[in-house]
């Protein structure tokens, strides 16, 4: 491809992204072209790099998110742009955000498991809101009595939060395993009561895992 062709494809891609108003994948972008003019995947990637560069200094930027690429307003201009909208951006309750965080980092997870960690009941409203916003979805049912639904986050969740994958979530703070906590306590208590040292193999099913466990489930979208 010569430069002229690239420039043309670049303009078409920009036009399509602005017309779509939502992310488009490389495949979707390639599909816009008829067989004989369709750029190769690699060429399309090149075009996207060029497009990204061409947005320097403008009001918008090319952003890659989970479902593809989209053109979006630069964060630095949000204060001005948000004045366009009378409604303030929606705020989410701590309960909702905590539930969302648990689904994001611990998926697939049941409501009961969320409640175990949060120590309180999860209201049906929160689950409904997450499902309606399409940030979470049911990915199956746990094979235990009652067959509770298991929740996972969606591509829309990642798109909404400007992520390409779950591995881009901020890492969870680390937690030392129970055994270590147990030893600490034992030392501190000074033998007032004897601490029963935990089984050397703390139930591997529990979420005591290492900090990288967030990324181990990134394939679930």
């Amino acid at each position, binding site marked *: 491809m010569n430069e002229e062709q690239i420039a043309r494809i670049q303009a078409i891609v920009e*036009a399509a*992204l*602005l*017309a*779509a*108003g*939502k992310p488009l994948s490389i495949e979707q972008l390639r599909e816009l072209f008829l067989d004989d003019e369709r750029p190769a995947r690699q060429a399309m990637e090149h075009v996207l790099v060029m497009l990204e560069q061409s947005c320097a200094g403008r009001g*918008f930027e090319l*952003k890659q998110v989970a479902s593809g690429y*989209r*053109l*979006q*307003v*630069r*964060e630095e201009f*949000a204060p001005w*742009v*948000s004045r366009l909208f009378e409604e303030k*951006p*929606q705020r*989410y309750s*701590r*309960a909702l*955000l*905590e539930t*969302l*965080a*648990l689904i*994001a*980092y611990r998926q697939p997870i049941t409501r009961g498991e969320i409640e175990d*960690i*949060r*120590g*309180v*009941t999860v209201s049906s409203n929160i689950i409904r809101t997450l499902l309606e916003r399409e940030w979470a979805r049911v990915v199956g049912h746990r094979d235990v009595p009652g067959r509770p639904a298991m929740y996972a986050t969606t591509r829309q969740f990642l*798109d*909404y*939060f*400007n*992520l390409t994958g779950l591995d881009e*979530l*901020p890492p*969870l*703070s680390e*937690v*030392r395993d*129970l055994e270590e*906590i*147990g030893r*600490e*306590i034992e*030392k*501190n208590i000074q*033998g*007032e*009561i*004897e*601490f*029963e040292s*935990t089984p050397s193999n703390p139930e591997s099913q529990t979420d005591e895992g290492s900090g990288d466990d967030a990324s181990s489930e990134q394939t679930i979208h």
Partner: protein
Amino acid sequence: MTDDTRAPAEAKPETPEQVPLALVSGKPLVDLPKDLYIPPDALAVFLEAFEGPLDLLLYLIRRQNMNILEIDVSEITRQYMDYIGAVESMRFELAAEYLVMAATLAEIKSRMLLPRQESDDDEELDPRAELIRRLQQYERFKQAAEDIDQMPRVERDTFTGSAALPKMPSSQPHPDVDMQELILALHGVLKRADLFTSHHVEKERLSTRERMSHILSVLQGDRFVTFESLFTVEEGRLGVVVSFLATLELVKEQLIEIVQAEVLGPIHVRARAVS
């Protein structure tokens, strides 16, 4: 414990005191009086600021600048019980989870008062370790929720760009049809009409039919054309025959009429369906 293994959450011990807990009579309730006295009308609001017993416990621990791993269970328990007691005496509805936690704390406290037990094979966890585990676990996700809230998100920190659409070609795509499908359809309809036995559509007939359509389309309207113009020499003998057959068939079906003004004069043809 050693200092280098401090809990990560300890890195931000400042938040609970600075963030208003609740709004009481329009004023932010930033800190609680040291004696734990809370105006009765604020107590319910105060508790609502927490996401449950673990959250309240975390608050109490942070307020004393304690490390989770070093919590003075008996002091935290006392404070927790004070709140629960106060709320109960106000006859506020209290979520069951708070009461369950109160029971757990009471159990831990009573265990600590008991002499050490000689039960090596006791698989049960120390309730305090279990509580600490839960607190730590909860704190991780409390933090994660705050992190998620800080992440740039659509409709608050960024906005999806879109532009108006230009005039677009109407794009109702045509369905694809396979010749096979067409044949099957024909087969179906002919079989239903039982036409196989009574009609024989020959190859020649088809080209005749095609020519019939062609001649009809030439004879649009009230126009006469010369008979000869229906034939093209270039088509050769076969073409002429096909045209001729088509013309005869059209006459037979009374679709065209053939006019000859005078004997041996030019022959003209026109479609019969004149309005």
